[in-house]
């Protein structure tokens, strides 16, 4: 327990420079991009020179980059993410409206890919080199080679446009005033296709890692010992699978960041108003405070997931960090 606390404390301290680099880097990149929020706005509305000057002044864009960055950091130190230029609302409110949707999409896709990937990986890895293994391996390679947006488009054409089993896009039926269970079911039916599109691609990855890891463990001495002691095939598979599971847990943490990136694309294909779409809008509108807020929240999320994964890892495999030093 104390070990875990020490780990948490050390990780949180380590997170501070990471977050600082992320924030400064994002700010710098956005500064380097041509055009600012006023340019983005004027491009869609038109306007003359006096209007442009007035807007720059009222949005605080006439100040130097250093001054704006300083203001952002000092606000941040007070726990304030600032004001979104393009939404005219506090950044935190805008993000919190979208974040749960993305988390639900990502979480469901992760659960799907992890569960299905592990299962298929075990089936394939039970007898490496068998017909079953070869079919599954080839299938997973094909899935992994598919871009998720393309898979998303195919799924929506087949299951939403042609068969009409699922709604085509969105997070829920718009302006429907559904509540409770019926709203939950509505959301589930809307998310079925995007979760599948996002989950299947990553499922292939989990499956391949599980299979490879099992294939390796089959060669270990303890397996030979089990065989020698006359254990049945399925009991041995159980032992092999359990030992092979660890790399997958590590991947879970690494994939959290990749999944967040993947959801940007999927949210656009399925018109899910989540964090991914919000990021696109923030960049297009050159809404620096909003983008910084999104990046910061995402970074915190990824750091938190990895921390949980590490704790889980230590718990799953007592050999790791038994001395208290490797962690």
């Amino acid at each position, binding site marked *: 327990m104390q070990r875990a606390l020490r780990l948490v404390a050390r990780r949180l301290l380590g997170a501070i420079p990471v977050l600082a680099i992320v924030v400064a880097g994002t700010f710098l990149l956005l500064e380097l991009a041509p055009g*600012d929020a006023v340019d*983005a706005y*004027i491009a869609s509305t038109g*306007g003359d020179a006096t209007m*442009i000057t007035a807007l720059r002044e009222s949005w605080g864009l006439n100040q130097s980059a250093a001054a704006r960055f300083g203001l952002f950091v000092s606000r941040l130190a007070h726990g304030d993410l600032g004001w979104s230029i393009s939404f005219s609302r506090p950044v935190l409110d805008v993000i919190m409206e979208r974040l749960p949707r993305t988390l639900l999409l990502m979480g469901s896709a992760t659960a799907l890919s992890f569960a299905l990937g592990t299962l298929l990986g075990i089936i394939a890895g039970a007898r490496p080199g068998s017909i079953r293994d070869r079919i599954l391996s080839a299938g997973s390679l094909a899935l992994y080679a598919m871009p998720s947006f393309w898979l998303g488009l195919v799924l929506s054409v087949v299951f939403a*446009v042609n068969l009409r089993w699922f*709604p085509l*896009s969105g997070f829920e*039926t718009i302006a429907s005033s559904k509540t409770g269970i019926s709203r939950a079911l509505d959301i589930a039916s809307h998310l079925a296709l995007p979760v599948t599109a996002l989950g299947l691609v990553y499922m292939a990855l989990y499956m391949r890692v599980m299979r490879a890891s099992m294939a390796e463990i089959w060669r270990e001495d303890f397996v030979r010992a089990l065989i020698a002691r006359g254990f049945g095939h399925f009991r041995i598979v159980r032992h092999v699978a359990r030992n092979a599971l660890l790399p997958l847990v590590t991947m879970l943490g690494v994939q959290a960041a990749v999944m967040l990136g993947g959801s940007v694309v999927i949210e656009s*294909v399925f018109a899910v108003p989540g964090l991914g779409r919000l990021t696109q809008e923030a960049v297009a509108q050159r809404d620096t405070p909003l983008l910084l807020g999104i990046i910061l929240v995402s970074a915190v999320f990824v750091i938190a997931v990895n921390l949980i994964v590490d704790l889980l890892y230590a718990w799953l495999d007592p050999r790791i960090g038994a001395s208290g030093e490797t962690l």
Partner: protein
Amino acid sequence: MRVISTTRRELLQGAAMVAAAGFAPKLAFAQDAARRLIVAADSEPRNLNPAMIASNGVFFVSSKIVEPLAEASYDGPNGLAPRLAVGWSGSEDGLSATFKLRSGVTWHDGKPFTSADVAFSAMQIWKPLQNLGRIVFKDLESVETPDETTAIFRFSKPTPFQLVRNALPALTSVVPKHIYETGDIAENPANTAPIGTGPFRFGEHKPGEYYKLVRNENYWQKDLPKLDEILYRVLPDRAAAANAIEADEIQLAAFSAVPLADLDRVSKIEGIAVVTTGYEALTYQLIVEINHRRKELADLKVRRAIAHAIDRDYVVRTIFLGHATASTGPVPRNDTQFYTSDVPSYPYDVAKANALLDEAGYRRDTNGRRFSLRLLPAPYFNETKQFGDYLRQALAEIGIDAQLVSNDAAGHQKAVYTDHDFDLAIAPPVFRGDPAISTTILVRSGTPDGVPFSNQGGYVNSELDNLIDRAAVTLDEQARIALYQEFQRRVVDDLPLINVVEWNFITVSRWSVKNVSNNPRWAVSNWADTAIDS
């Protein structure tokens, strides 16, 4: 105490139920409002006040809520149909224009609509704040309101009534004085939740999801509107719009939200109509903007060579798939008042283009190149980007090496219109029924830096400026038309920019939607008579 435990069977049953749930909502679809129209929206304007921002993106939503004095019409006198004004006339000296207003109209909050609202909108918003009104109403001095249904516009300089009339549909959205008179107009909450006199009231906006407009029960036109609700569903992905209309999740996609490449397939589907009318009063033009600060491009021979190098028919066929017309000049062919075909022409002729460049002294080097330049296509439409690819190849044919520079909207705005960091750019300006509204600004000199869709190429031609200024104060309609025909000839002759093609958008709708495209600004008109069969 009972220990709660879950057996594997219960877990599996639960999982099966969740899976089945995916199909359940299909049954519930029918419960929605009977007369609800769902349309695709590809952007979410942050300011919905059409009196301030006269742009089609804003009008698409707000024109159903806030009405102008008059709307464009296929059969009305001078191409207009009355809305908040029932009659209009200009004085002989061009110093005043009188509007007779509709009586018995109320705002959505129940307050009466009067001439004071028109006076306030004109003096406080159209003239000082509106992107287009600043030009057309620049000499508007005051608006007199002798009674509640009369508004008299007084101009400090003669202002052609023809121009005022042509500006009515797009530039004269009337907003309520009692809502806007206190506080900063730019920060007024009604800019995001508009209050108007139109057939629909603003319902709600869920960012990233939809706008909802609901029926105005007290609309001044009896028995209208015919819809209970309009939902604008935000679909930023273009492929999504085509699929959504096919799956009947939306019933209408305007402004070519369904990509041109999909039209052929979609038009064959039972229940879906492809409508190519209803945009005649908002014709978009594909133009090549030229930076005249560049030595080579300041040479008329080079500009003419570029004009000869563009195969307009090919552009119409391959990029617009036939849904466009080759341009002859700065006024589109479908304009009924000002257009003339009596202008110089630059037929597609690569040999002639090469000869002109040789003549201008830009000979090919050993690699066959004459000079290179930067080409910035506007990112706003697929077609502007595709034309960028085409133009690069067309220029290569005549030995000009064009490097494509692709920016997003903010980057393009800054590079072209503020920093003038371009040699050639591709822009899609709109012709709005009168050259003085948004066309002459494309070539007249003297516009400050940063104004989009204006002459930022450093072109200065005092004779042309003079002609534009004279036309702006010429009261006699025939004389004014003659001046703008001369304007077209001069522009095509000297090529401050190159007009390539002009196009109107396309609406795709389900058969159930009635009265689609029944006026020349239909997508941005009030949709009071639009109906849907359930």
